[in-house]
């Protein structure tokens, strides 16, 4: 039998004309990432990416906290699709990995249970007088960045290489669980060896490092993070990952899920405070970037417009290695003038100017 290996699986991604939906978490913690992505797609690559201001949360976080019935989230998703239909688009571009998983799941259920699609159409019509078509392509923003990695790399003045030693930077990836674990055919490379991030890092000249807990969940756990007393769940699962990657001395953690990006950043601070331990050699933590943040940096976007000062683990050591110039003084200055500086953690070393 000719083996179909998911590892080699290439998802079909349209070249152009997308209807874009945002991520609650990315908008909250990494506002510059979504802005940079749209800027790259529209202005650097000349793509048509449309956003309708009437789109809302997909309610995915609440759904996975078991606060929203299936019929309800299905109809909310249908409403988003009706906005897409109304604008004349059939390619959906999703910023959030939780949302991406939700869209995949709803499309899958509608395919296998057509009666649910009919019920949803009816519910949406009754409640909003809207109707919708199904998308012909469902694309996560990391899919699109991966799909466009060569044109992006062609325009990039930088490489994921230590400029002073010419050593390829060591990259570990963490692909969000809902990217391909639920529906392997929804993502590049399937559930076990998704290539969506590793392919991107390698295109920029980085060296991918496989580590034991690569496929372990970051530990979001939805309700567990959202309840303060349960956050030990999130923290402990991220810790399993850090402990596992530490020996491989990565220069960068690359993510595609907004939640994972935030957790892998913040939990390094929290663990340092709680246990005195960081997972790099210098006590500064391992820098974390998402696919859009990496693409924007590689294309020479300003790190502070990109919002990298909103990361708790500082990015300067990585920028210095790559040889990306930045205005240190601009980091904390605001439109209205100079701002105050953030406080300093007691363990994790930060570089404030």
């Amino acid at each position, binding site marked *: 039998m000719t083996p179909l290996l998911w590892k080699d699986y290439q998802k079909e991604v349209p070249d152009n004309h997308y209807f874009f939906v945002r991520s609650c978490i990315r908008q909250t913690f990494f506002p510059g990432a979504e802005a940079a992505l749209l800027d790259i797609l529209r202005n650097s690559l000349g793509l048509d990416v449309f956003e309708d201001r009437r789109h809302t949360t997909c309610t995915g976080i609440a759904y996975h906290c078991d606060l929203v019935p299936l019929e309800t989230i299905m109809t909310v998703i249908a409403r988003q699709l009706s906005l897409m239909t109304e604008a004349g688009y059939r390619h959906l571009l999703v910023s959030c990995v939780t949302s991406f998983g939700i869209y995949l799941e709803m499309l899958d259920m509608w395919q296998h249970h057509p009666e649910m699609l009919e019920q949803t159409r009816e519910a949406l019509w009754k409640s909003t007088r809207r109707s919708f078509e199904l998308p012909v392509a469902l694309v996560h923003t990391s899919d699109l960045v991966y799909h466009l990695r060569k044109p992006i790399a062609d325009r990039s003045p930088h490489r994921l290489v230590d400029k002073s030693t010419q050593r390829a930077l060591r990259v570990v990836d963490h692909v969000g669980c809902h990217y391909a674990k639920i529906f392997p055919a929804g993502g590049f490379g399937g559930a076990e060896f998704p290539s969506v991030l590793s392919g991107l890092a390698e295109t920029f000249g980085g060296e991918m490092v496989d580590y034991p807990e690569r496929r372990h969940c970051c530990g979001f756990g939805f309700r567990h993070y959202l309840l303060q007393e349960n*956050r030990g769940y999130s923290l*402990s699962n991220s810790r*399993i990952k850090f402990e596992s990657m530490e020996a491989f001395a990565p220069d960068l953690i690359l993510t595609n899920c907004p939640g994972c990006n935030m957790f892998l950043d913040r939990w390094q601070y929290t663990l340092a405070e709680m246990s005195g331990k960081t997972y790099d050699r210098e006590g500064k933590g391992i820098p974390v970037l998402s696919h859009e943040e990496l693409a924007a940096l590689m294309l020479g976007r300003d790190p502070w417009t990109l919002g990298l000062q909103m990361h708790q683990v500082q990015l300067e050591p990585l920028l210095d290695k790559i040889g990306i110039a930045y205005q240190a003084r601009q980091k904390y200055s605001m439109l209205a003038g100079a701002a105050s500086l953030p406080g300093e953690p007691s363990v994790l070393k930060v570089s404030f100017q």
Partner: protein
Amino acid sequence: MPKPDFGFAFAPNRALDLSAPLLPEVQVVLEAEPSIRACMACGQCAAVCTAGAFTPLAFYRLVLELRGGDVAAVGERARHCMLCGKCQMTCPRGVNIRNAVLLMAALAPPKP
């Protein structure tokens, strides 16, 4: 900045780590009663266990947990055994359960 009170804490991975070598005291038990190794966790011992009806004793579980290394807990639990010997009559693999239980019970620290 002072360390904040986070309101939660991390915990180590609950997964058993089989890579850890067997404790010497566990080795001693296994060598003193080699038939323990023949246990296939069929549960017949637990099904007939007199003490197991009202205590957490189940011999096959002691065998499984013995290798995990929490020898004090295994020893404590082994002490629930009344040595009635029904398990030994029913064990399809001929494990010398009475002797095994006595060896295991000796793993717990002596009662003050």
